[in-house]
């Protein structure tokens, strides 16, 4: 039990973050993480001893998140507006940064779930490509193509935003 505590506990903030970005709803995300932790506790002995606890936990959490997203879609439920707003997640735009965080978060929010999951696991949680493939149960080639498409989309969205706020005026000679 003790080794489980040592391995799992430091990961809880990361699990919360991943769930929140996927579900866009912090209360639902914490419910999901609780569910994930309960499963991890009861299945701890089934996990491969040489396996990476982090990858294993993200695998459980991701499956739970996808199930929930599917159920929500089936019920036609809507995400609460205040939670859906990426501004609820993102920090206020930082004047110093080249790209506004709010813009990036909005672009992230518009990615398809599968691309967003890959981008989060690779860039935020810093899982290797192989571990990301394991967590999402897809071939590594799929991870690479989703990652590439996610980045292409983010670039395009940000490029679109960097147009002047009143582009129509520019066309006037």
């Amino acid at each position, binding site marked *: 039990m003790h*080794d489980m505590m040592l391995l799992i506990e430091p990961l809880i903030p990361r699990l919360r973050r991943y769930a929140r970005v996927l579900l866009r709803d912090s209360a639902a995300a914490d419910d999901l993480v609780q569910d994930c932790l309960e499963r991890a506790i009861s299945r701890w002995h089934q996990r491969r001893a040489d396996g990476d606890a982090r990858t294993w936990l993200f695998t459980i959490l991701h499956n739970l998140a996808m199930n929930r997203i599917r159920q929500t879609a089936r019920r036609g439920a809507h995400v609460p507006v205040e939670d859906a707003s990426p501004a609820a997640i993102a920090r206020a735009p930082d004047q110093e940064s080249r790209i506004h965080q709010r813009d*990036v978060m909005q672009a992230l929010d518009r990615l398809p779930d599968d691309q967003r999951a890959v981008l989060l696991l690779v860039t935020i949680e810093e899982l290797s490509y192989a571990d990301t493939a394991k967590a999402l149960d897809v071939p590594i080639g799929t991870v690479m193509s989703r990652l590439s498409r996610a*980045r292409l989309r983010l670039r395009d969205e940000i490029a679109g935003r960097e147009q002047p706020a009143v582009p129509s005026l520019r066309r006037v000679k």
Partner: protein
Amino acid sequence: MSGGRPITEDDLQGYIDDAIDSRRRGEVEAYLAIHPEVAERVAIDRALRDSLRDALAPIADEPVPAELNLSRLVDRHRRPRRDWRGGPWQVAAALMLMVLGGAGGWGLRSVQEAPHAGIAALAQEAADSYAVYAPDTGRPVEIKAADAPQLVRWASRRLERPVSIPDLSGAGYSFIGGRVVPTPHGPAVLYMFDDGKGTRLTMLARNMAIDRDSPMKLESTGQVTSVSWSRDGLGFSLVGPLDRARLHPIADVARAQFSGPI
């Protein structure tokens, strides 16, 4: 670009994520140096990555809410009868325990909390055996190392399978003997080892009805650590007054000796 492997999209992703080796990295950098439009794209991707990290970092810095407190979740898992969501039978069992508890008190409580099966039970039994026999100065073992073949015959007969004695001398622990001991799950063989300076380790082995092939599980209680695992229905638990970092490699040595065909 003189005949090297062409730079692929995967290489660019790997470059952005710092996930390629330094040689390939050098090749990507050389490519980017002469392809400014690709270099610009990669720079934007890196800036986006940093921006995402900055935007999401505060979530991971938030205090973890009480309902995600792992110790509490573990406690609840260990005492599922206290959680009445389990259905009528569990409620009935809980009510009955409450009634009995009024009369019977603490004895029942400890029975309820002791691990009753699998690797967790094995670890508990091993820790109990260690506590009884390891500090025994007069007669820690019933059969001494010199009579090892006799111990092996005895244990193999009682466990109804061939058993062998692990060699931990590489870790500085010599075998001093052993005995057959009782557990709630049938007979077990207890081996004892000594480092010559008064530190003793014990290893308990018995047949497993469940958790028949289990990865290593470490547990520390007070001064004592146990490492328990099972293979092909035979469970092992190595116990000693060492911290995990020191006991774990010794258990690995023992496990490796049992990993061949039994």
